[in-house]
């Protein structure tokens, strides 16, 4: 086992253990902060896969944006609402959990299927890339590649996402606006 594998297993353990804690903890705030460790560990796994840009973007968007937003929503909501959320009945099996269990079970089946059906060591596209000597090396510049692809091959999805975000911004500004006549 080389050092990269050791790091991979440590990171994977951190991610899974913290994710389990997030799901099982009774204390909502602690699970939000634990979620930070999950996201950070994921970023580490991305770095290990030589996707440093994705890793940093993960931290900017999820840790700097989404997580802080969740915390904000949490701290601004009243104590009563949170109390109800935190006092769920301790029954392990109940009818209300059935949809979630079903979904999880189906997803698990899909995952197991994927693991069993793919031959990880002989993937055709990996062989192709290795044969063409086009594999990514640790020192390669990836951002130029991402920028060019975003502006050529993936321009339509990129623009569609921009319009979606624009709509969200306009909607947020409209909701926050003072209504005419009300002071």
């Amino acid at each position: 086992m080389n050092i990269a594998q050791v790091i991979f297993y440590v990171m994977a353990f951190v991610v899974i253990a913290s994710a389990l804690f997030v799901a099982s903890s009774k204390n909502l705030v602690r699970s939000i902060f634990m979620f930070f460790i999950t996201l950070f560990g994921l970023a580490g796994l991305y770095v290990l896969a030589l996707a440093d840009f994705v890793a940093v973007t993960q931290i900017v968007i999820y840790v700097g944006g989404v997580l802080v937003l969740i915390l904000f929503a949490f701290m601004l909501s009243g104590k009563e609402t949170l109390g109800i959320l935190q006092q769920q009945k301790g029954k392990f099996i109940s009818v209300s959990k059935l949809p979630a269990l079903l979904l999880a079970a189906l997803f698990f089946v899909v995952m197991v299927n994927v693991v069993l059906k793919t031959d990880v060591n002989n993937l055709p596209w990996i062989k192709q890339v290795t044969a063409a000597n086009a594999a990514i090396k640790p020192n390669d510049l990836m951002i130029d590649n991402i920028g060019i692809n975003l502006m050529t091959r993936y321009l339509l999805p990129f623009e569609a996402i921009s319009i979606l975000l624009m709509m969200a911004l306009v909607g947020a500004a409209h909701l926050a606006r003072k209504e005419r006549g009300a002071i």
Partner: protein
Amino acid sequence: MNFYITYFIIAIGLFAFVAVFTLFGVYAERKLSAFIQDRLGPTEVGKFGLLQTLADIIKLIQKELIIPAPADKVLFLMAPVIIFVAVYLGFAALPWAPGLAPANINIGLYYILAIISIETLGILMAGWGSNNKYSILGAMRSAAQIISYEIPAGFALISVVMIAQTLNLQDISLQQGILSAEKTKFLGFWDVSATGGILSWNIFRAPHLIVAFVIYFIASLAESNRAPFDIPEAESELVAGFHTEFTGLQFALVFLAEYAMMFLVSMVGVILFLGAWNTPLPNMGAVQLATWTTGTAWGIFWILAKTLTLVVIQMWIRWTLPRLRVDQLMNLCWKVLTPLAFLCMLISGIWRLWLM
């Protein structure tokens, strides 16, 4: 395996530097505020009170760690560590001299922006963990302020990156002096590749970056929670904001983080706008001032001098301007700085396409 030892030595060295900087930063701030307010400042401990902050830190280390009874103990203990580590990690990517950077990362600037945003999380953690209404109000204010001001700061930085065409901080530094591999033009018309000096700094390569620099500087004040943007720890309203409950070593860590943050944002500003480790002296005919004053030792000297100047300006502003109200703060960010930053970005694009 030798390089692992080197990594540790570099990490410890950076930490030592941050600690020493904080010690003398606090001393300088107290002396400067005393000068501005016509007082004397610390005078008793050591010559001119030089050892005052050293005595302070020894006192802080000896203090008992008090955890308030209703506090969330884990979050309360973790918060100062996360606040400090977030800032400290940012130091890894900063270049100090030609060929001398702790980690020469391709996306260094983006990494620093990302890692700094973790500080917000630490502050929210401190506010919630303390279980104190002043702390939580301070934490909320701080998070709102940092998130808002990240936008103009980010766009000001993007306008530089568009000119430089790279996110690697060492490459950005190289472009702004005589060591540059590509052509450097002063104001877009005069080739100064061989002259170097102050003429080839980014703010003179593209003059609209002066505006971007001012935007970035104002936003960086807000991001490090310094006056006039210190409403998160407004003493007259919130006792001490998010760090009200901290004592001893934890308080020292929060303080260390604040001063490290001041240094970090100043250094990023210097690297991107003010020529990084390049000398301000140009080559003039036979007097090769730029060539004589470029090198590893000179590089460290120049970048330290420039960064410390910016830090002093930050302190000067703190003791000169009154604190902004929350609505004024948000107005300034969203209605003045953000549109201006967008304009800078637009001009950068045009400048890069047609003038460089």
